[in-house]
């Protein structure tokens, strides 16, 4: 028995650790450093219908314990990804989770239809943090009805299970999670980045050319843990948790909070060996804590099921 194994809709993971979308490209660079076949899965960079160049630079800025990015979904477009990246990835025995993005529902549906047909794409990850051009740029993921509708349509078009990636920039993440569950999502991935900004004191201007960017890294971990904890108690589909994971301990904290697997984003930049190191460390950590399998850790922190106390800061 493999004590790290986790079964999720569409995915048999040899271990619960995978790189997060946008932090690993399509795996080529990391494959020069280690065997990426040892990963639980790979969440590839967002695919859009048409190629995108993304935002002007600077696209990243450092913040205390975190970083901001405004890459702007640069990607070669779904056709090229299917022609060049996915076939290359077939040499590795690792399930691919294809992150998809768009500006209209039709975009998403079309990308989902195409990319879910690739043989090594075992699941889709629906990035609903993108602005919806039809509603003046309000993100799909900040309105429950929009999120549900989008999920429903993508689910209908997809040949593989659909995981919806939640935006943390909402008042009530449980409401959105329940909506996408109703929309037919097979799972949830969370969290995407928090909206943030840094201002450069020399120029007096926002440091990122796009002004705002997405905050990721250790700084956001407590927000992610809180959200995974709350959502996991309120939906019955599984969660892949992420946000600031830098160690096996962090990964376990997400499992305890209620995630069934864990993605590593920013830490891949801090330490390109982050994923294999965590995979290697995980069994030792389980031993140290007297635990036998990853599965038994999932949701340990909320076994009591008491409703959450409201807090006045």
């Amino acid at each position, binding site marked *: 028995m493999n004590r790290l194994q986790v079964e999720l809709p569409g995915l048999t993971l040899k271990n619960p650790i995978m790189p997060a979308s*946008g932090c690993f*490209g399509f795996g080529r660079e*990391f494959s020069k*450093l280690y065997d990426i076949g040892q990963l639980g899965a790979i969440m590839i960079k967002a695919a859009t219908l048409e*190629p995108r160049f993304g935002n002007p*630079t600077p*696209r*990243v800025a*450092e913040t205390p314990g975190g970083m901001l990015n405004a890459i702007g979904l640069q990607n070669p477009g779904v056709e090229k990804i299917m022609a060049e990246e996915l076939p290359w990835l077939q040499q590795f025995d690792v399930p691919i989770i294809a992150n998809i993005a768009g500006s209209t529902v039709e975009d998403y549906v079309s990308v989902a239809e195409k990319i879910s047909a690739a043989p090594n794409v075992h699941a889709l990850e629906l990035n609903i943090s993108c602005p919806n051009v039809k509603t003046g740029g309000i993100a799909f993921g900040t309105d429950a009805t929009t999120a549900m509708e989008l999920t429903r349509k993508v689910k209908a078009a997809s040949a593989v299970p659909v995981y919806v990636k939640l935006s943390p920039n909402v008042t009530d993440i449980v409401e959105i999670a329940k909506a996408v569950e109703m929309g037919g999502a097979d799972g949830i991935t969370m969290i995407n980045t928090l909206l943030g900004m840094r201002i450069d004191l020399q120029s007096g201007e926002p440091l990122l050319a796009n002004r705002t960017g997405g905050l990721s890294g250790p700084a956001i971990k407590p927000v992610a843990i809180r959200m995974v904890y709350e959502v996991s108690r309120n939906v019955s589909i599984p969660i892949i948790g992420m946000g600031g994971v830098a160690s096996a301990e962090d990964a376990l904290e997400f499992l305890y909070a209620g995630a069934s697997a864990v993605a590593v984003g920013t830490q891949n930049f801090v330490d*390109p060996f982050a994923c294999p190191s965590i995979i290697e460390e995980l069994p030792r950590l389980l031993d140290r804590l007297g635990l036998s399998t990853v599965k038994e850790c999932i949701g340990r922190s909320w076994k009591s099921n008491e409703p959450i106390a409201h807090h006045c800061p």
Partner: protein
Amino acid sequence: MIKDICTVIRVKKIADSIFEMVLEGRIADEVENPGQFIHIRVTEGNAPLLRRPVSIAAVDKKNHRLTIIFRSGGQGTLLLSRKVPGETLDILGPLGNGFPVDKVDSGGTAILAGGGIGVPPLYGLGLKLREQGVKVISVLGFQTAESVFYQDEFASLGETYIATVDGTSGTKGFVTDVLNERGFEADILYTCGPLPMLRALEAGDYARETYLSMEERMGCGIGACFACVCRKKDDPNGHSYKKVCSDGPVFKAGEVLI
């Protein structure tokens, strides 16, 4: 490209806020071209979080050593400047392509035009070119006399000119002022420094061919995150791009939009 734990051999302040550091580790063995860089994790903790890209100024393969020269300004480079011999650093490298050294024949002339913290990679380049019998002319720009460094080192490679913005050392003005004044004949110009300098050198006609080393804020440093892209000049509004970290940092003048 490998990741290695390197040992700090020496740290020395060589000019105002400028430090020279010698590192020992397997990364030195992997260096292919001058102008490649390393990506340094300056602390085990996460303050600061990201690695810092710093050019390789010189490499001593026999002793598995690298020299880097950096300006201590922000949080990361400040911590770096405080390292003491014997401490170790987690380093990823060598990264990027570096300067092409085969574009000029033995007996030819190369101009090295460096500005401020763009000067260091040109030193390693100069050493290599000299080794190949190329004549090297160095034109180095700084803010002020106190920030000048490596003047003697460059002088040992060939003619060396200094420009300072305030005129406290060498020519008052910019690298381009020296170039315009002197009108050197050169086969090739290699440059690294601030954007306005790169733009001026690209626009001017100082050599048959020009190669420039770019800087951009980086995430991964290895080509995976798309933080450091620049546009290609022949497709300024399209989808073509180059990554400074993995396709660069050195580009042929005219290749990318600067």
